């Protein structure tokens, strides 16, 4: 029983981080219709950058972490400006492939600059474990969940009340109408990429403070895809709810299935099995908009 509780808590907390990264996908998808397949690589790159700032350069947290956020903003702006801007109105095939190329490019850059295979960030959160009922959980999980929820609330408020946020929602709804209203659509695209990169940075920092920085961080990108597919590609609330579900299924499922199925790494395929099931049963996800196409 204690084991189940432990799996549940860690699963929910990890799932919150997936939601956060998935939100970055949803923001870009909603505003510009680009499917960002380089999400995992962005997480990896930004985690390594954090490592450079905090561990290699030895900056204090109050200076190093804002620097990472600034770098993420810059990275998002550059990606949108240089790579995605020339491809506006291209078929979805090109848009998907260009992010795959970007993913490959980032992976190369990461290997060149940080050749070591793994590293760990300096401790961001206190060491002491917390006892919840009969489960023992390290504080990192709770902090991760807390930060994710706070960021989600902030983002929702931004999209509800800020002028730019409202413009972004409008762009998601109808690009031409927004353009006719005099809102610069390209600015909104670059804003959404900046958001996506910041969310990837925060997600990466939280993930690597729990498990260290590894090549495997790119798989969080794949997990984020299963989150958006389960939640629906164009739904913020969907991503926020589907994340913990995926996290829960991943940890609880792999925790118990490992007793029955002796094949290694069952954890890595669970999200894919979920994807296939969702595709066959409810392709537009739990909260996604069921698009009706016209000829």
């Amino acid at each position: 029983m204690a084991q189940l509780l432990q799996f549940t808590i860690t699963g929910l907390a990890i799932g919150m981080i997936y939601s956060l990264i998935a939100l970055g996908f949803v923001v870009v998808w909603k505003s510009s219709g680009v499917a960002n397949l380089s999400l995992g690589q962005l997480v990896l790159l930004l985690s390594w950058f954090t490592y450079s700032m905090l561990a290699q350069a030895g900056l204090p947290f109050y200076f190093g972490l804002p620097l990472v956020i600034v770098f993420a903003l810059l990275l998002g702006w550059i990606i949108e400006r240089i790579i995605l801007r020339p491809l506006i109105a291209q078929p979805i095939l090109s848009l998907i492939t260009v992010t795959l190329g970007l993913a490959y490019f980032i992976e190369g850059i990461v290997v060149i600059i940080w050749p070591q295979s793994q590293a760990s960030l300096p401790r961001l959160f206190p060491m002491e474990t917390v006892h919840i009922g009969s489960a023992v959980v390290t504080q990192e999980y709770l902090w991760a969940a807390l930060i994710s929820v706070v960021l989600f609330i902030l983002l929702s408020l931004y999209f509800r009340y800020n002028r730019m946020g409202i413009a972004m929602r409008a762009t998601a709804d109808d690009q031409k109408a927004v353009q006719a209203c005099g809102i610069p659509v390209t600015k909104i695209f670059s804003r959404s990429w900046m958001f996506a990169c910041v969310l990837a940075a925060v997600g990466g920092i939280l993930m690597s403070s729990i498990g260290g920085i590894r090549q495997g961080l790119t798989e969080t990108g794949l997990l984020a895809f299963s989150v958006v597919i389960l939640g629906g590609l164009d739904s913020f609330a969907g991503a926020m709810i589907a994340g913990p579900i995926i996290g829960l299924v991943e940890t609880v499922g792999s925790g118990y299935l490992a007793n029955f199925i002796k094949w290694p790494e069952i954890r890595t395929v669970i999200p894919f099995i979920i994807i296939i099931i969702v595709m066959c049963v409810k392709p537009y996800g739990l909260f996604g908009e069921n698009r009706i196409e016209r000829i």
Partner: protein
Amino acid sequence: MDLPSGTRNYNYAEDMAIFRTKTHWFLLFALLVILFTAPLWFGNYWLSIANLIGITIIAVTGLNILTGYCGQLSIGHAGFMAVGAYTSVILTTRFNLPFLVGLICAGVMAGIIGMIFGIPSLRVKGFYLAISTIAAQAIIIWVIRGWTSVTGGYTGLEASPASIGNLILKSQTSEFFLILIITIIAIFAAKNLVRTRVGRAFVAIRDNDLAAEVMGINLFRYKLTAFFIGCFFAGIAGALLAHTSRLASPEYFSFTNSVLYIGMIIIGGLGTTIGPIFGVIFFQLLNVLVTKLSPALQSAFPHLPGGFTSGIAPMLFGLAIILFLIFEPRGIAHRWQLFKSAYRFWPFSY
């Protein structure tokens, strides 16, 4: 401009001919002579590169039928190659079937698995399909790694060399001829397939699937056919790869390979028969260049960061994909077309 100036077609056979003029036939003959005598002047290293190019051309031609002609993006092609490789190796080593039977079975098996994972394509497209094919790749590789009793897990399976009848193709040269002949058959089949009713249905589905359905094209059947044919080619390529490298290992069929295959058809030119050939040659030669040059660069400039040699290849490949998509989305095949029309009109261009 498909034909040189002044060439006119007077009947259907002339209109459909792939090689229309005497120059075409002469160039084809010259190319075949060069290819079939290649082992005389290529060393073993370049022959092995040529073999790899041939195998990749088969796989990428299949992907081109699926993605370039039918418009169904598949980012799991290496996974389907793995299915073919393991099918053929298991049939030839465990059940002692002849190589050619194993090869055909590899294609059929990969095609069937591809069709199973292609079923979602009827309901979803674009990003959804991309993700479901990524899932296919991950699940296939996971099964191969986990099902140790059949597939050998991480270490892989040892494969016997290819053989036809009593002829065992062991040397690099004989493998080169085998791969060359199969590649030619594959390209020829692909070229003709896309001119048939099936191929035209694929193009209709790619351009507008709703209109295609209204015109009476059975979407489900043709999309699954595209998956079957594309994965059939992949299976053949995978089997050849396993038999020529004497090993079927999950390492050969990684996710990065799947991404690279997509990059190859993009760079070569989507929806053209010659595109995959250009794309594959471009990527493999770039790879050779990088593996040859980067250690030299590393020793010449000691200040380069430590991961330079291993990181430069993915970086350049990613960069090539991005640059081609931005500046020449129609790929090298389009440039080749421009070049051909330029020299045909020379010196009286428009």
